[in-house]
């Protein structure tokens, strides 16, 4: 009964979304105020219905209703309740429902917080969001209904993929989706502005806080995904250039360019058309990302194509979104003024250069992600594009972006003097250069690792950003006048970037790994640590059995840590899972993962196991950097300007 209720709510939500998409837009076009003012109540109903559908599906998971096909595929009666609730988004259908639900959530947030927006503008924004939701709900209802029944009901479910049974992965998809879906608000604002023909500073100011919040969620989601991959997958890596990861990185890169371009548009009226294109691009890439990850196209292009309903719908949906918005852009953009003039050396020009570089980098990632799929779909052979490509492309494309962050902040709007910039930043440059050469040289002398030019480059860039930011903050504090929150947000986020780059540089430059066969009482040394295997024991979990190794870590004869990597076997799938053990610290992580048993010791005949241990210097800085960026984004969102400005619009 409950699943049918959810299904019914979903069907109703589709029609309501259609009304939300059509009426306010028509009202705004014809000037019919009644239709425009319908946008908000309709949005509220839309949200209520999707909440009902979402709760209905979650209910089915909680009560173990295995007569629902989706539940039987992604849950199991042994699964703890928390994981059962999270299993709602463990597969394709539920993820799409979560997407639609979050879209309705963002829409209602826009409706609530846009009281001060002109009626026509909020009607257009909510209308565009309604159209997107209509498309999504049509997709869910026709091809991916999570409420489909399974008759006769399964006795027990197939269980959630053991890899997904982790706190990190429970909150990772909702965070990422909040980001994906949040870009639809930036998109809706851009389309609404195009429709109204008013691409002005006010539009940029309205759009900025929404875009920032979306970017914050996205940043947090990606960081969480990376941390999960690091701590769960047991391979010691934190970024694999996997299509699944690339799918989230692409909209992030676009979104980063977008939040900066919006600032230039708001402050100086600069490159408006480019900003609109970035908004359209960020949302299109979010859509592409959702479909890439959740449609099964990555596992097998042919299986995907063999269920053509989904594939065709996805392609049509993407084509409609991208095609119609670009057509609208081409129709309206020539009317947009080019904005204020900018000098060759100015904050605008640095921002523009960086956003172009970010777009090029996105293009490179897109090429590497999509090309193998296209070639495969056309039956032209099978190939893959590995991590070396992405590394080779990303460093030269993003190093200038990081470099320009400092003069971009230091330069004034409109026109800056190059020689003045050089003069102001010369000590920063010199200090960074010294650090970039000194640290690897000292580390090499200490025998910690070779001096690589990439290490110097990374250290230089992070020191450059760090010192540049510090200098700018000090200068700013000496000036009179209140410093807005958005300034502190920006500096915090930039500092986060510097910290992230330190982490990446140090891990890439100095990580050590050892792959050994080890028995009880044997040791392995890693840099100045000695790891001894103390014991092996069997442990029982709620829905798995595990073999646990206990490793004692000693440094200078003192015990500094204990690592307990596990090999788990889940009852429902009989699939083994490596559970890595990590001892985290500010300067380094020790990481151990347990492999299979191997042949016994040649002399003693004692049993031995495969063991992989890593020393990962500064890897915590990666997560710290991401958290600082998230914090910076949040601080910037809280800036009073966004609230004050909207009230001023009403008075005007």
């Amino acid at each position, binding site marked *: 009964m409950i699943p049918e209720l959810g299904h019914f709510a979903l069907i109703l939500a589709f029609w309501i979304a259609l009304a939300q998409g059509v009426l306010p837009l028509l009202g705004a076009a014809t000037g019919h105020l009644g239709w425009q003012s319908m946008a908000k109540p309709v949005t509220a109903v839309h949200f209520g219905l999707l909440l009902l559908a979402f709760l209905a599906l979650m209910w089915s998971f909680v009560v173990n209703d295995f007569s629902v096909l989706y539940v039987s595929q992604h849950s199991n009666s042994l699964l703890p309740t928390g994981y059962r609730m999270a299993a709602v988004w463990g597969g394709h259908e539920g993820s799409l429902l979560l997407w639609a639900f979050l879209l309705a959530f963002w829409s209602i947030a826009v409706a609530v917080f846009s009281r001060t927006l002109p009626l026509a503008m909020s009607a257009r924004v909510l209308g565009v969001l309604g159209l997107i939701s209509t498309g999504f709900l049509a997709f869910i209802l026709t091809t991916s209904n999570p409420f489909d029944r399974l008759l006769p009901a399964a006795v027990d479910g197939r269980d959630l993929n*053991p890899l997904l049974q982790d706190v990190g992965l429970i909150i990772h998809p909702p965070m990422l989706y909040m980001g994906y879906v949040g870009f639809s608000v930036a998109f809706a604002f851009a389309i609404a502005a195009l429709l109204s023909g008013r691409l002005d500073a006010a539009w940029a100011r309205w759009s900025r806080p929404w875009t920032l919040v979306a970017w914050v969620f996205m940043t947090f989601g990606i960081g969480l995904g990376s941390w999960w991959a690091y701590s769960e997958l047991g391979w010691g890596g934190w970024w694999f250039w996997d299509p699944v990861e690339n799918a989230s990185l692409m909209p992030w890169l676009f979104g980063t360019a977008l939040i900066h371009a919006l600032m230039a548009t708001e402050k100086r009226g600069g490159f408006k058309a480019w900003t609109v294109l970035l908004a359209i691009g960020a949302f299109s890439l979010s859509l592409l990302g959702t479909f890439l990850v959740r449609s099964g196209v990555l*596992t097998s292009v042919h299986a995907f194509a063999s269920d053509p309903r989904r594939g065709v719908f996805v392609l049509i949906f993407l084509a409609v979104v991208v095609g119609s918005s670009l057509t609208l852009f081409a129709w309206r953009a020539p009317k947009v003024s080019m904005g204020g003039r900018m000098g060759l050396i100015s904050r605008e020009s640095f921002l523009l250069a960086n956003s172009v570089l970010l777009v090029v980098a996105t293009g490179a990632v897109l090429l590497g992600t999509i090309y193998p799929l296209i070639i495969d779909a056309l039956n032209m*052979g099978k190939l893959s594009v590995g991590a070396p490509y992405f590394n080779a492309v990303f460093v030269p494309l993003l190093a200038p972006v990081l470099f320009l962050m400092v003069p971009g902040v230091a330069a004034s709007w409109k026109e800056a003097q190059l020689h003045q910039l050089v003069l102001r930043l010369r000590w920063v440059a010199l200090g960074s250069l010294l650090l970039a050469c000194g640290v690897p040289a000292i580390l090499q002398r200490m025998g910690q690792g070779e001096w690589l030019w990439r290490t110097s480059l990374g250290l230089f860039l992070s020191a450059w950003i760090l010192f540049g930011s510090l200098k700018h903050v000090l200068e700013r504090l000496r000036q009179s006048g209140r410093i807005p929150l958005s300034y502190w947000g920006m500096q915090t986020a930039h500092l986060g970037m510097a910290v992230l780059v330190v982490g990446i540089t140090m891990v890439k430059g100095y990580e050590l790994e050892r792959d050994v066969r080890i028995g009880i009482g044997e040791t392995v040394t890693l840099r100045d640590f000695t790891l001894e295997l103390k014991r092996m024991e069997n442990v029982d979990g709620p829905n798995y059995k595990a073999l646990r190794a206990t490793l004692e870590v000693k440094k200078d004869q003192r015990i500094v840590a204990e690592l307990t990597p596990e090999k788990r076997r889940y009852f429902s799938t009989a699939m083994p899972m490596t559970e890595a053990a990590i001892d985290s610290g500010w300067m380094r992580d020790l990481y151990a993962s347990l492999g299979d048993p191997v042949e016994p010791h040649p002399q003693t005949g004692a049993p031995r196991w495969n063991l992989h241990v890593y020393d990962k210097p500064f890897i915590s800085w990666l997560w710290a950097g991401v958290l600082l960026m998230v914090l910076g984004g949040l601080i910037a969102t809280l800036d009073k300007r966004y609230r004050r400005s909207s009230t001023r619009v009403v008075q005007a």
Partner: protein
Amino acid sequence: MKSRHKRFIAIMVGLLLLSAAAALVLNAFRSNLVFFFTPTQVAGGEAPKSSAFRIGGMVKEGSLFRDSEKGSFVVTDTQKDVVVKYHGMLPDLFKEGRGVVAQGQLNAQGEFVASEVLAKHDENYMPPEAKHAMDQAAARKAAETVKP
């Protein structure tokens, strides 16, 4: 007039840098494409001798062998076999009789030295490349049995 010249130069420099970036990307792309070959293709000498590629198929039952440092297994598409040497740990999903994909290079003995044995995050899983290799072999077999 002067500012127009300046703008022209700026645009030209921008375009030049963009094309440099494009050249960089495409060059890196071309040199990092990793092609896939089935065991039959490798046995037939179609695979490159001196560059990396991927191979996929089934892990032959009873072929997994580990000595103190290194190990090896046989990957098959039921028609032809290729020996794969590896070092280090095998992924969780690795099992005899299951699908596998490995990336690496051929050595002088015609054995495949894997730099990476690939794993994916799914249990009911056959790597798409491995499935492709099996399908190809099955199709060839079917064609051969029909012919005579």
